[in-house]
């Protein structure tokens, strides 16, 4: 059954999109990730214009983060204060990102930058995860105890001014790195159409030493607001949010996540992480391949308004 997407302005198969939503939702439920980094490339592979894929992706992430954040809220595993400070940076980052997005789109380099950012981020994170999970697996096999690294309690971050107390995280640290992380992730959210959890979570754990039990909830909490803000900005500045497309993906994603979460319980942590790493690397390779192999069409047509160029 085909459906006409009013903003993307093309007719697509609704079952393919729904299936994509379920598949990505399944994986995100299984691995406990947002799935934006899979959804946006998949949409691009399915010939949705990258600008629409990215902006619609952020809209879809709002939905997939809400259920997760609600669960964490009930379990009281969100540091609202830390999340709100992150959010302040995130909003600024998203605004910067959307401005960059509009600019890159006008000079015709948006698709390239999106692809390069995906290759760089997916490639590095996939590699780190794979190496880490293989090490963990070796330790499990050799019977050694899984060593919990105690990160150094003090580093340069703790010397920064503007200190704040984050009670739930049991932290007393400067607002500057918190806002900075929020800002960096906000830029990624708006340009890549992701939630940014895959950067946010490691940054909170390794840079700020936020306790792991509140990391995911806090990250999800601020993702909702940053992606919601980005959606509104994209809709205003670029008119690239396709609400029909987003709705199909949301419904598929919410359903898929339930089955994924159930499937995830049957796998060991290191197995899950190595599988996720391989998946991330596969998407990365596919995007990298498209960048370096001569495209079928080296020419492309973009409607413009020549009056505004002058």
């Amino acid at each position, binding site marked *: *059954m*085909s*459906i*006409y997407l*009013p*903003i993307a*302005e*093309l*007719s697509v198969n609704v079952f393919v999109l729904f299936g994509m939503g379920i598949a990505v939702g399944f994986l995100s439920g299984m691995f406990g990730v947002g799935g934006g980094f899979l959804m946006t490339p998949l949409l691009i592979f399915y010939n949705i214009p990258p600008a629409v894929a990215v902006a619609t992706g952020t*809209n*879809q992430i*709002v*939905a997939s*983060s*809400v*259920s997760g954040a*609600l*669960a964490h809220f*009930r379990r009281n595993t969100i540091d609202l204060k830390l999340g709100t400070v992150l959010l302040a940076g995130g909003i600024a980052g998203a605004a910067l990102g959307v401005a960059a997005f509009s600019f890159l789109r006008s000079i*015709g*380099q948006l698709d*390239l930058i999106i692809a*390069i950012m995906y290759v760089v981020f997916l490639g590095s994170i996939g590699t780190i995860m794979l190496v880490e999970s293989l090490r963990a697996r070796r330790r499990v096999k050799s019977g050694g105890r899984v060593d919990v690294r105690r990160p150094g309690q003090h580093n340069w971050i703790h010397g920064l001014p503007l200190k704040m107390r984050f009670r739930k995280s049991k932290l007393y640290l400067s607002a500057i790195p918190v806002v900075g992380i929020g800002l960096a992730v906000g830029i990624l959210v708006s340009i890549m159409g992701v939630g940014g959890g895959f950067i946010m979570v490691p940054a909170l754990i390794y840079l700020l030493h936020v306790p792991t039990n509140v990391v995911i909830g806090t990250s999800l909490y601020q993702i909702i607001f940053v992606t*919601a803000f980005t*959606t*509104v*900005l*994209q*809709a*205003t*500045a670029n*008119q690239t*949010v396709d*609400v*029909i497309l*987003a*709705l199909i993906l*949301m*419904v598929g994603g*919410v*359903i898929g*996540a*339930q089955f994924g979460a159930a499937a995830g319980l049957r796998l060991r942590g290191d197995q899950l992480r190595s599988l996720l790493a391989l998946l991330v690397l596969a998407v990365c390779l596919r995007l990298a391949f498209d*960048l*370096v*192999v*001569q*495209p079928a*069409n*080296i*020419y*492309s*047509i*973009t*409607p*413009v*308004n*020549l009056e505004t*160029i*002058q």
Partner: protein
Amino acid sequence: MRSRPAIRGELRATELICLIALLLVIPGLAAAQGPTRELEAEDRETIQMGISTDLIPVNSNFAGEEIAVFGAIENADRIAQVLNEYSVVVVIRGPSEDVLVRRKERVFGVWMNRQARAYRNVPSFYAVASNRRLDAVAPNDTLRRLQIGVSRLSLNLYSAGTQTFILPAPQFSRSLRRLRIENRLFSEDSSGVAFLGTSLFRATLNIPSDVPIGTHTVTAYLFRDGQHLSSRTGTFEVRKQGFEELVWSLAHDNGVIYGLLAVLVALVTGWLGSVVFGRGR
């Protein structure tokens, strides 16, 4: 012969006389005047045309459509009909737009957009149907003047002055035509017009699902011996309708409200998801 008969029955009788007269006259005329035929204005063949619809609604299950153009040749010459000398060409032209044609080049191993050319007033949609190949319809000059045929469509290069042009523009305009053909936005169909009987014709043209929104003009041209005799123009509208129209116009006129609604939809969907599935947690 001076006053045009209104009823077909009468036409037949007069046509017969006309035919006999022409039979006698034409060889002499052709010999005397060469390729230029002289016909009295009232006797000239004209083309009549009607479009199957004046509105193509684009809604959620729109997957393209076929548009039919019906018409007739009036004052048709019997001999020309018998000898199949008439050519009918139907052209649909979508709203004009300015486009940028970009060319990718390899930079440090990565393919990226480098050079670009701007073209003004390019039809966003262009379809030609004819009853024979276009090069058999009329000479190139005539077709070019009438803007008939994808390859004869003039593309107006627009130079911004700031760009350094290294590659010649023909590669760009060729690619513009080729890409539009691949996307089914430019098309030619040399069997798209069929005669029903002798003077009635029917043209069918495919409207793809990504047809541009706006007013499209339809022109039917009549040719004989490579000469353009007559043409008629009509229009039809492609318009988003119902929900699609609402979504699109809201997105473009009220981006903030649209964005807020999109967020609301997401919040409700996510919340519903956790209500429906989240009980067990």
